């Protein structure tokens, strides 16, 4: 299975970033500041203000990725799938919502917070903002690493009608839980089935058996991938 990485974007302790404009790789194991609207969009945006922290972080990663791929603007809906791996998911939102339930014995339960107590909802936000009609799902794994989502992205690309897949991870701090191995933040890549000579791409993602390769080099983590993508940009000047 093969795909081409056309864009990469992230949210880390250093803020929002993307492959073609980043000066350095993101830092994951530091305090994450949940992105604000002005970090992403120039215009006022009521919907963004309603999102919980997990959804803001995930949506920001997807937005930066699409921006990096020059694919943020659209007119017709696009057959692009979205999938994200997460360990803690929207657990902090669950706790915040539960607090509204407990506070008034249910009378004060927040419908807005409840709407984001499903971790896939930020993928829905991305779908409606960017016209993405492919499959959209969250993967929660027992074992494995966060790059497993790239395998599944390649599978989706091979087995579905989608021309592209946005695949990545999203993690935000949860009170009482230790930091996951990926660190906090989000990172997404746009994988397409064919290279785009005009827009350019970072390189080839390939799955062979149980191993993943980027530009023929074994890929073990998203950090590896970011470094390799930034090196590609540096080589092109």
């Amino acid at each position, binding site marked *: 299975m093969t795909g081409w990485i056309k864009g990469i974007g992230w949210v880390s302790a250093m803020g929002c970033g993307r492959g073609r404009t980043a000066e350095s790789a993101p830092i994951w194991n530091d305090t994450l500041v949940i992105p604000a609207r002005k970090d992403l969009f120039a215009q006022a945006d009521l919907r963004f203000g309603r999102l919980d922290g997990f959804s803001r972080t995930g949506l920001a990663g997807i937005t930066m990725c699409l921006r990096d791929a020059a694919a943020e603007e659209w007119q017709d809906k696009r057959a692009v799938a979205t999938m994200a791996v997460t360990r803690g998911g929207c657990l902090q939102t669950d*706790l915040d919502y*539960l607090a509204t*339930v407990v506070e008034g014995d249910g009378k004060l339960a927040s419908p807005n917070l409840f709407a984001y*107590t499903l971790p896939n909802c930020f993928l829905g936000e991305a779908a409606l903002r960017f016209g993405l009609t492919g499959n959209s799902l969250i*993967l929660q794994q*027992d074992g494995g690493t966060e790059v497993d989502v790239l395998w599944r992205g390649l599978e989706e690309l091979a087995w579905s009608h989608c021309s592209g897949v946005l695949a990545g991870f999203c993690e935000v701090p949860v*009170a009482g*839980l230790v930091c996951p191995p990926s660190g906090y933040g989000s990172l997404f890549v746009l994988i397409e089935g064919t290279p785009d000579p005009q827009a350019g791409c970072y390189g080839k993602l390939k799955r062979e058996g149980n191993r993943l390769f980027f530009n023929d080099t074994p890929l073990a983590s998203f950090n590896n991938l970011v470094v390799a993508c930034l090196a590609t940009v540096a080589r092109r000047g």
Partner: protein
Amino acid sequence: MKQVVLSRAAVVTPLGDGVDTLWQQLTAGGTAIAPLVRFATANYISSCAACIEGLVAADGESLMVPLLERVARQMGSVPADCRLLVATTKGEIDRLETRSRNGLEPTAADLPETFIRRVAQRFDLPAGGVNINAACASSTIAVAHGAALIAAGQASAVLVYAADLVSEFVFSGFSALQALSPHLCRPFDQQRSGLNLGEAGVALLLLDEERAQQDKAPIMARIAGWGAANDAHHVTAPARDGCGLILACRQAFGSAAISAKQICAINAHGTGTLYNDAMELTAFHSLFAEKLPPLHGIKGSIGHCLGAAGAVEMAVGARALTEQLLPPTVGCRNPEAVGGDQVGEKQQRISGDYLLCCNSGFGGINGALVLQRIMS
């Protein structure tokens, strides 16, 4: 591409344990929707739901634990090389709720990975399972993914374990969204006013058809096609034109290599909410322009089982194909005009080999499966 079959199904629902019991109750027009006693409902817009009888958890444990035990006992052993796909939206949410009310912070035990591991251990499967969270289409999407793995030769056996509970967490949320019906829900009825929540635990064993034949494993139905698509419209409301569901169904027809005309029946999501049911009928009319096949929904009987809904409905759909009979849509006393005489509170005879199952969920996701009758 390899053919994929549903070999075995174990179900625990508010209408009892086992596909046979569920089928008998559904065809008799039974319903398990009743006043809730699990938690106080005075401050919510509804006081009823469908709960599984005899589900009791030990102190500090989730009801998901005894539910898993009942499903696993019914299922029996599964092939040791099964890939495990779990489908739950909120997992052991009752445990988190209790801990939170007691001022305790979450622990690693509250993460989905703990539940996935519990399921793997109970079925004697190795670690490495995955939970697919696609809201109320979770198990539909999980079955689609499992079928795709088998079709592509990446696996020859997949166990899909789907479960969700009636919890105050979810009940209060749907109440706050004004989505609950205060009475028995009425899917596809002109007077429908919302959904009733339900709960279920389901295990589905998917096999490569050649392997099933070699192992002389039972075959309930072939999973002939699957599809998934997003509305790209709204996070909690379906697209009124049904665009995402239409796309998912067309993909399912395409992968099954059939035309819409070959579908003899539909097991619809049919939540009983104004917008979901209207969206589905719009989508079905677009897909089946010539003639709408008989359709039904079972949420008036067992409530909306969230992430497990699709898995229960798939087991029912397989049985419906075998029996060539659609159970009644309990609560649909006065069907929407656009549903014609194809949906209602009476059983319907069907005639054909392909049945469409579909589900939709928050986040705009839609999943569709085409089941094919296998003549023994």
